[in-house]
């Protein structure tokens, strides 16, 4: 007993480390295959442009209010914070520059990504998951229609297209939020503020914001569709799929954000 216990302990440790590691690798593999399958099917007919437009409206247009709201309040709060922090070493004048850089490079993409992922990943997982448990996905097959082309590809591509546009809108609104509070509450000169803002608007930063947005859009739709498609069990299964979709979309967005930022500036 005493002889075998160190070996058993090591084996137990290896199992403890190995099992979740293997599970994670398996999940990554499955998601990758799912994504590739969607892209390959999307590139071969039949195409569903009407479904794509539908999804663009759902993901893009109907998310605009929540995105605008988030951006304007965050932009304003950011300006206020920088003003207070900057005044300790007489650096209040950095407010417009920090608002522009902060919104465009980080807060715009990440906040839009998270807000829209909350809306979109959950809705996709719940809808496709319900179709799974009510056999509507099987019915599609018997009705000669490919679920990847009809359901999943339009969602993935709509999300990929909509997110960059929404991040542009959010950046503009966020910068405007910062402007509003700076000019009307913190006593900045409007023309001056806009001048500094313009000087710090950088096309490279916008390019990075758009790349981030596209990647986030792809991940949020992928997670929603993947978890919905693999839903098991009834109502509880749909609940699990929805939660897993949102959590995994958030995690992927946060990791991807760091990776892209480090790659751009590292």
């Amino acid at each position, binding site marked *: 007993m005493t002889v075998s216990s160190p070996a058993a302990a090591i084996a137990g440790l290896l199992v403890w480390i190995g099992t979740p590691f293997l599970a994670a690798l398996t999940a990554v593999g499955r998601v990758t295959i799912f994504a590739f399958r969607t892209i390959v099917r999307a590139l071969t007919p039949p195409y569903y442009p009407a479904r794509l437009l539908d999804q663009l409206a759902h993901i893009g247009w109907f998310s605009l209010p929540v995105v605008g709201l988030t951006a304007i309040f965050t932009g304003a709060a950011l300006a206020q914070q920088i003003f207070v922090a900057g005044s300790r070493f007489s650096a209040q004048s950095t407010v417009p520059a920090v608002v522009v850089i902060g919104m465009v490079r980080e807060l715009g993409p990440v906040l839009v990504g998270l807000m829209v992922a909350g809306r979109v990943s959950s809705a996709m997982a719940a809808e496709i998951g319900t179709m799974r448990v009510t056999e509507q996905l*099987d*019915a599609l097959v018997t009705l000669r*229609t490919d679920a990847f082309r009809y359901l999943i590809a339009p969602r993935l591509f709509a999300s990929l297209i909509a997110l960059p546009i929404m991040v542009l809108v959010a950046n503009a609104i966020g910068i405007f939020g910062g402007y509003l509070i700076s000019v009307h509450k913190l006593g900045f000169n409007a023309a001056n503020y806009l001048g500094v803002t313009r000087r710090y608007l950088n096309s490279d930063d916008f390019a990075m914001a758009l790349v981030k947005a596209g990647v986030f859009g792809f991940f949020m739709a992928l997670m929603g569709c993947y978890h919905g498609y693999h839903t098991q069990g009834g109502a509880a299964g749909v609940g699990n799929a929805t939660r897993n979709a949102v959590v995994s979309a958030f995690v992927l967005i946060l990791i991807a954000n760091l990776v892209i930022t480090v790659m751009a500036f590292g």
Partner: protein
Amino acid sequence: MASPAPKIVLDGVTKSFGPISVLDGVNLSIDPGESLAIIGQSGSGKSVTLKCILGLIQPDAGSIRVDGEEIIGQRGKELERLRAKFGMLFQGSALFDSLPIWRNVTFALTQGHHRDAARMRMIAEENLERVGLDAKILDLRPSELSGGMQKRVALARAIAPRPEIIFFDEPTTGLDPIRADVINDLIVSLVEDLGVTALTITHDMASARKIAHRVAMLYQGKIIWRGPRDRLYDSGNPYVDQFVQGRADGPIS
């Protein structure tokens, strides 16, 4: 005279989910124009058998031939061509709740595209009429219909592309006895009028006796009995006896 070539042949089909063996060598043959019912307990593998034939589930071993063509291992266009021979009535109807009734009924014809609206509405109307439904429901959503009507819409959707083979998954489950008999009558008339081959899975004995020419019983992943419907109540098989009479005591525990 040789009997006609069978429409569907299952040969030693096995399927396990993890450690649980669901199908353990299913052998079955269905002739063209024949209506066969598979009876068996819940969880005996009836649905898995249907899904294997449709290619929704890959069996572990065995052979499934439709008109002499192997369906296992087929992919892409070939699988689509074979699948086009099938229609299926799902247990819960599985209507698309985001689409109006007429788009549901014509879904296999449009493959989800929004085209030919006028012609598709006419086709939907024809098929709804076949299952005894009115054109008034064309623009309703599935959730606005009763369970029995949803089932009939699902039946209209399954027959709209005029498949050669139709699967019925528990067609009468969840319906009252009168509505259930309406569905039974519809299935009988469709099989006769359209000349389709029908495969029904059910545990409703009245339904099996009415719609099937032949009955097969699935137990523990194997077909343990098959025979004409008239022999169902004097099969001489203790398992079938216990099942059709619905007794709690007997060889099936």
